[in-house]
């Protein structure tokens, strides 16, 4: 049991576990599974903008902010008490391809050559961390949801709009990973 918990989970354990978040949130809080609206509530909470878009009582959505605070805590707990020393179990094909593009460090969850404060002024880091984050915020509000709200909750409800959004997610993601990422990594 301990060994099972401490190892990375295969997809057929992790996927259903994530799927169960849908009924759990409905039964316990009567809320629809979704994460990205928290970014808007954070803006409203911090009064970062005077725009009408943020003129609502964010406290009515505090469950969502507490939920994402929980995500942070849950990850912290796992990192502290049940860490894995293994490398992320990506395929050898991916390791080969990333190596050929200039990635040499496969430890941790993200490549240290990009995601570190030491590299904050590098082009690859600025594009990945700063521009990437901006597009996540802008895009999720424009589309009205992210992987959890559209791909999992929306598709679970057989919502056509969510299917359109998920097709969009993959158009954007494929374009970046296939055509732009090699250019970004060439600056390493």
């Amino acid at each position, binding site marked *: 049991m301990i060994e099972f918990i401490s190892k990375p989970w295969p*997809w057929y354990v992790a996927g259903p576990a994530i799927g169960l978040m*849908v009924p759990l949130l409905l039964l316990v809080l009567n809320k629809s599974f979704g994460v*990205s609206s928290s*970014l808007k509530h954070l803006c409203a909470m911090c009064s970062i903008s005077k*725009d009408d878009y943020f003129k609502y009582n964010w406290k009515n959505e505090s469950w969502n902010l507490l939920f994402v605070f929980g995500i942070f805590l849950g*990850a912290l707990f796992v990192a502290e008490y049940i860490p894995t020393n293994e490398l992320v179990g990506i395929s050898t094909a991916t390791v080969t391809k990333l190596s050929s593009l200039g990635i040499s460090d496969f430890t941790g969850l993200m490549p240290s050559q990009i995601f570190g404060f030491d590299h904050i002024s590098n082009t690859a880091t600025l594009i990945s961390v700063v521009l990437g984050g901006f*597009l996540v915020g802008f895009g999720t509000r424009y589309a009205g949801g992210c992987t959890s709200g559209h791909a999992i*909750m929306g598709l679970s409800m057989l919502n056509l709009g969510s299917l359109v959004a998920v097709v969009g997610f993959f*158009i954007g993601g494929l374009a970046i990973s296939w055509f732009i990422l090699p250019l970004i990594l060439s600056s390493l």
Partner: protein
Amino acid sequence: MRHLYAVLLGALFGGILVKAEVLSWFRIQEMFWFQSFHMYGIIGSAIVVGAISLQIIKRLEAKSISGDLINPADKKFNKKGNLIGGIIFGCGWALTGACPGPLYALVGSGYGIILVSIFSAMLGVVAYGILKDKLPH
């Protein structure tokens, strides 16, 4: 109590995100390069479990623990907004290697630099708020 439950459910989700490795930039590139079934298996089986759960909740007319009927609202369908916004988010997903849930989980996993991404994402939301009336939806 509701506040505590929200934190606990978030913590459960955050823990799963780490154990499933879905918060890993490496996993996201592998997914977009179609080099493993892992991410597709996770998203696909999550949808199947979510959909079956919703059907059961609907058929049983289940109530939440506070006694209210569970009837989740459909998201508004904006044909252009969902597609264009989706494409923009997809670009951000591949660049950071993380969607919003994993962003918070990465900070918990010790990647402080992702706080910069979260702040950037908030600026992205602000930009959307300012521009939204001029954008096609």
